[in-house]
């Protein structure tokens, strides 16, 4: 496809912004100044000041002499970039590919977008009038290359839209400064009498390179379209993204629902055709007042079932506050995975295990409501220490690598921390005769022999545990242990679990 670029030039970016913030400055000539090399220099002037002969780079004192009522405001470093980023984010409604062009411009890759606004003329007019009505003094141009658009926007005098393929001709009459060249090179060109691009474009490349360097040739080629220019996009485009601009701002829940459904439908159709499914997706709602509301969902198994994904978003619709209305919805599937075709084969209301889609969908809903970290599944781990005898499964379809051990008795309930008990026992290595737990005396009637569980010395140093299964006179069964040897001074008894 023929690529088309729009370059927008904000002629008085920072001063326009300040005028918007402080309307009383509208009728006052004012400048931004900054100290550069022990000299207070003007970094930006508003149009009133400019009309009276104040230009950028002039010393503030000189300017004050020219314009008596000049207001001098200290420069805010980094303000241009901040403003351009915000304006660029606003421009995403016109094209998903927006790049900031410091110090005072934006570049939009609008390939395939213009027809949505009824052709390129209407498109460019819409952008410019909207920006001007916001209060920014802008000029824009639309050509085949970034370089040519930049040049026409700033130096073009005839028309802002250059038909495909005609940009080399349109550049001919412009000054060399339109090529985004280094000031040193511009000086040299000036001295040599090259006042327009026309005057040197016919010269041999090698001669130009020898005199003006490789950078000069690169800029020239970029403007002519011989060299690809890569834009640093404000928002990198996700490969799976759907957009839905709205004719009128959406303000109702039903409207949002329809928008989400429409987006999901086209996304799922595309994913299904490629055999893929969503793992994480983000819905962005661009509001009329410039705010962007994001909501994200995640799934346990990759899914391209529209109904299911919609259910996940449905839980979050109430978080989307439309206020004055939403004019653009985008849906990005940031993480996409292959869908296991078995999933659908196994789907049936009966006899489904963990691979079941219905279960995965249920867990997705729960994870999106209460948090994925609240859902656990455990797999056996080949370690004896009771607290470490199982580990968290990373996914729903992870299979146990070992068998669950059944050879040693393990309690149904395990206290998160062993609790201290007072114990009387007959002989050093005998199970206790009685113990007191939370003020209740338990007389032991039956007990099993000790099971010694050693600590894993390579992990932590500490006392081993001698576990006993004991049953008191009422038939209540407990798991108690003595930490360390009987004779040790620091050996203590703990209750650790309850048996069924």
């Amino acid at each position: 496809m023929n690529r088309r670029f729009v370059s927008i030039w904000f002629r008085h970016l920072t001063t326009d912004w300040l005028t918007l913030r402080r309307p009383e400055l509208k009728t006052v000539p004012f400048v931004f100044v900054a100290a550069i090399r022990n000299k207070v220099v003007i970094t930006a002037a508003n149009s009133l000041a400019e009309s009276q002969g104040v230009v950028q780079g002039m010393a503030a004192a000189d300017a004050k002499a020219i314009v008596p009522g000049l207001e001098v405001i200290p420069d805010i470093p980094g303000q241009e970039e901040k403003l351009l980023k915000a304006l660029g984010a606003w421009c995403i409604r016109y094209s998903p590919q927006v790049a900031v062009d410091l110090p005072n411009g934006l570049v939009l890759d609008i390939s395939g977008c213009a027809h949505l606004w009824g052709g390129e003329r209407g498109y460019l007019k819409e952008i410019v009038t909207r920006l001007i009505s916001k209060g920014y003094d802008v000029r824009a141009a639309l050509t085949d290359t970034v370089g040519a658009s930049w040049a026409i926007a700033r130096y073009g005098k005839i028309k802002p839209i250059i038909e495909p393929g005609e940009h080399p001709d349109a550049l001919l009459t412009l000054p060399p400064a339109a090529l985004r060249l280094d000031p040193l090179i511009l000086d040299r060109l000036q001295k040599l009498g090259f006042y327009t691009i026309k005057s040197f474009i016919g010269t041999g490349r090698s001669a130009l390179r020898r005199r003006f360097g490789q950078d000069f040739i690169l800029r020239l080629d970029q403007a002519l379209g011989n060299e690809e220019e890569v834009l640093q996009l404000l928002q990198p485009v996700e490969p799976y993204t759907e957009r839905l601009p709205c004719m009128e701002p959406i303000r109702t829940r039903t409207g949002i629902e329809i928008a989400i459904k429409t987006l999901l439908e086209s996304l799922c159709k595309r994913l299904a055709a490629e055999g893929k499914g969503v793992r994480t997706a983000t819905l962005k709602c661009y509001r009329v007042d410039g705010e962007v509301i994001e909501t994200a969902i995640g799934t346990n198994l990759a899914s391209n079932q529209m109904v299911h994904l919609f259910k996940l978003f449905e839980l979050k619709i109430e978080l989307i506050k439309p206020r004055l209305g939403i004019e653009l919805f985008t849906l990005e599937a940031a993480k996409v995975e292959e869908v296991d075709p078995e999933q659908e084969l196994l789907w049936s209301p009966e006899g489904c295990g963990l691979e079941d889609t219905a279960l995965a969908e249920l867990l997705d809903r729960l994870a999106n409501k209460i948090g994925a970290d609240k859902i656990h599944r455990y797999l056996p781990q080949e370690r004896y220490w009771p607290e470490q005898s199982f580990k968290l499964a990373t996914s729903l379809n992870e299979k146990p690598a070992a068998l669950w051990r059944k050879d040693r008795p393990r309690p149904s309930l395990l206290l998160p921390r062993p609790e201290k008990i007072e114990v009387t026992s007959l002989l050093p290595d005998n199970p206790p005769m009685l113990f007191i737990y939370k003020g209740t005396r338990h007389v032991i009637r039956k007990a099993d022999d000790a099971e010694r569980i050693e600590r894993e010395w390579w992990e932590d140093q500490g006392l081993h545990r001698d576990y006993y299964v004991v049953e008191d006179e009422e038939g209540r069964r407990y798991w108690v242990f003595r930490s360390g040897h009987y004779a040790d001074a620091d050996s203590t008894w703990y209750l650790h679990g309850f048996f069924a």
Partner: protein
Amino acid sequence: MLAAKKDIVKQLQKQILQWEGFAPPSAKKVGNIGLGEIESAFPNGVFPTGAIHEMVCPTPEHAAATGGLMAGILQSLMKQGGACLWISVSRTLFPPALSTFNVAPDRVIFIDAKEEKQVLWVMEQALKCEGLAAVIAEVKEISIVQSRRLQLAVESSRVTGFLLRHDPRKLGANTCVARWQISPLPSILADGLPGVGFPRWEVNLLRVRNGNPGSWKLEWIDDRFIVRHEQVTDGVEEKRIAG
């Protein structure tokens, strides 16, 4: 005359149950749950699946015993290959212990909710999911309205639900199909053998909808439940200690 009246009453009770959403269970589909004689306490002599059971656990010891019995029931319920959800706020269940009762712990999904309200919300969502073998929730209190919501959820999905009532303040009325209380009993070993024997419990069915409450002594031996009637004399009671 009296017999005829009894018949009519029985018929009417059955109808009321159906209107309330308790479909008569089909024995063929579920198969034996393995509780033996206890199943006769339920209507038609079949353990009601696709319904909600309430288990009362006043102390951790009761909870442990209940956990054992539940795991035994889960073993039968999960035979068809379904998964199981365990929802709680502060969980003490030791997952590896489930394997003692032939339940693969990796087929149980544990959900740790923030509060009781969330437990009930999760349970309702889970009960709507056809194909789950069982949903277990640990809650302290439940109102009749909340239990009605759960009942409506199981009516369409036929998932079996268990409510573990830990340390309940009051046991109010609710729509659960049965109220159980399981207490541990001293284990029994054959003469002269030292140590702790097989798990043994007293199963009390405090309330059964349209059934007969009762009390049984139950043991878990060789991977199945055995109901004991006779009072076996405990031969090893005096020999306390093994080895």
